[in-house]
């Protein structure tokens, strides 16, 4: 909950101290706290609950509309004008909004770092002690209690789908000679790995509280080249997701804090939800892309011809650039019904090059 309060503090730093603003902060804190408590009661870890609450928070721009304008704000202009209510949108406040949103971007990034920091150890003494142990135990491959590094490198049986739900692990999907999984992470965040009904399942088990910052937690999943997977579903709280040279039908990525990179791959549909982090697709063939990016840039670069695709791109703050033509706020183009690129970006640029 402290992380959530700090997040709100940072959000509200750019707002003036008025009764309305104070009331908004209190009410939002109440709602977030209720949601957080229920997620914990449902069995989510602190980390998962915080990630969910923050990713469902929304945009500052909606608040500055409500708090920064005079008069009555109408969701439904027709009804209210018919009922003799007056109210007007103050268009001159757009500049103010933009400035506050840009400032808020920095604040959100800081908040994200706060989230990461809170999840890592404040026990720096223990980390220092471990460094000397790690040097001494360099040759050990498996779980080593003094250095707390867990490694696992194994060939696995064939799978057709991937399901990952992790809290602080970077996930890489790549192509190679065989089906393999390699994990290297802090002992305390080691995930559970199993293959059931041809689905590779990787799940984080424990709550994340005291992880030495200097541990890089990674997981590499290797699939034999030219093998098509059914669906890849990755849900990550804090960690990057990178998919290279992979053939798949569907990809669903939900990342709270981390970058998403899809490179040299061939997929039918791609559904990405990124709260804080960039989304980059390079040299990837696809039919359908749907991305929701809260804070971060979206970049799609491909040699495929996208001229017959439907485009629906909106940004709150940030430019849209399609083959170097610039657009503001919205770019739509009707094209083929089953080839679509849809991006909803709150704070960040969207660039498409083909």
């Amino acid at each position: 909950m402290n992380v959530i309060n700090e997040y709100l503090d940072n959000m509200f730093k750019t707002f003036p101290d008025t009764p309305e603003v104070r009331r908004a902060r209190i009410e939002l804190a109440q709602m977030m706290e209720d949601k957080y408590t229920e997620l914990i009661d449902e069995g989510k870890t602190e980390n998962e609950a915080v990630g969910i609450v923050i990713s469902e928070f929304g945009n500052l721009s909606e608040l500055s509309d409500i708090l920064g304008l005079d008069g009555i704000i109408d969701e439904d202009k027709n009804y209210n004008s018919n009922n003799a209510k007056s109210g007007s949108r103050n268009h001159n406040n757009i500049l103010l909004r933009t400035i506050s949103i840009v400032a808020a971007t920095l604040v959100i990034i800081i908040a994200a770092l706060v989230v990461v920091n809170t999840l890592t150890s404040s026990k720096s003494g223990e980390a220092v002690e471990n460094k000397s142990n790690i040097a001494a135990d360099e040759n050990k491959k498996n779980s080593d209690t003094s250095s707390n590094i867990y490694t696992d490198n194994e060939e696995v049986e064939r799978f057709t789908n991937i399901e990952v739900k992790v809290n602080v692990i970077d996930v890489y999907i790549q192509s190679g000679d065989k089906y393999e999984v390699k994990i290297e992470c802090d002992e305390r965040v080691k995930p559970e790995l199993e293959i059931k009904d041809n689905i590779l399942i990787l799940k984080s088990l424990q709550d994340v509280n005291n992880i030495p910052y200097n541990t890089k937690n990674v997981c590499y999943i290797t699939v034999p080249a030219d093998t098509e997977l059914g669906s890849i579903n990755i849900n990550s709280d804090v960690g990057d997701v990178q998919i290279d040279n992979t053939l798949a039908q569907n990809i669903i990525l939900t990342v709270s804090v981390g970058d998403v990179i899809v490179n040299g791959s061939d997929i039918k549909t791609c559904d990405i939800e990124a709260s804080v982090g960039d989304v980059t697709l390079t040299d990837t063939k696809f039919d359908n892309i749907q991305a929701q990016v809260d804070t971060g840039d979206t970049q799609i670069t491909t040699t495929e011809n996208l001229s017959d695709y439907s485009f629906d791109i909106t940004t709150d703050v940030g430019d849209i650039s399609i083959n170097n033509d610039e657009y503001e706020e919205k770019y739509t183009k009707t094209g083929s019904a089953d080839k679509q690129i849809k991006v909803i970006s709150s704070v960040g640029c969207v660039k498409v090059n083909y």
Partner: protein
Amino acid sequence: MNISSDVIRGYNDTIILYLLLDNPSYGYEISKKIKELSDDKYIIKETTLYSAFTRLEKNGYVTSFSSSDNSTGKRRTYYQITDMGRQYYDYKCEEWNLTREVVSRFIRG
């Protein structure tokens, strides 16, 4: 497929008023009911919800009061619908029925 926030924008107030028709409620309870009643297809953002509450109150469609939760003693802001709010809700229902009827004519399948 999830609901598009652009499309639902005109109906956030309506959705909230619906949930207040029978009894007052508070922030998270409303957001939870929206999620449940929409089968997880619409998860309303906190900022959207708070903006809607503020707007509804400014327009006189709801009033708010502070009350303590019976079991936890936690103080929350509760919202309740007004007569004007009920009128606005009825208007929006009519508008939706008209919209749905007209748009349906252009939808295949």
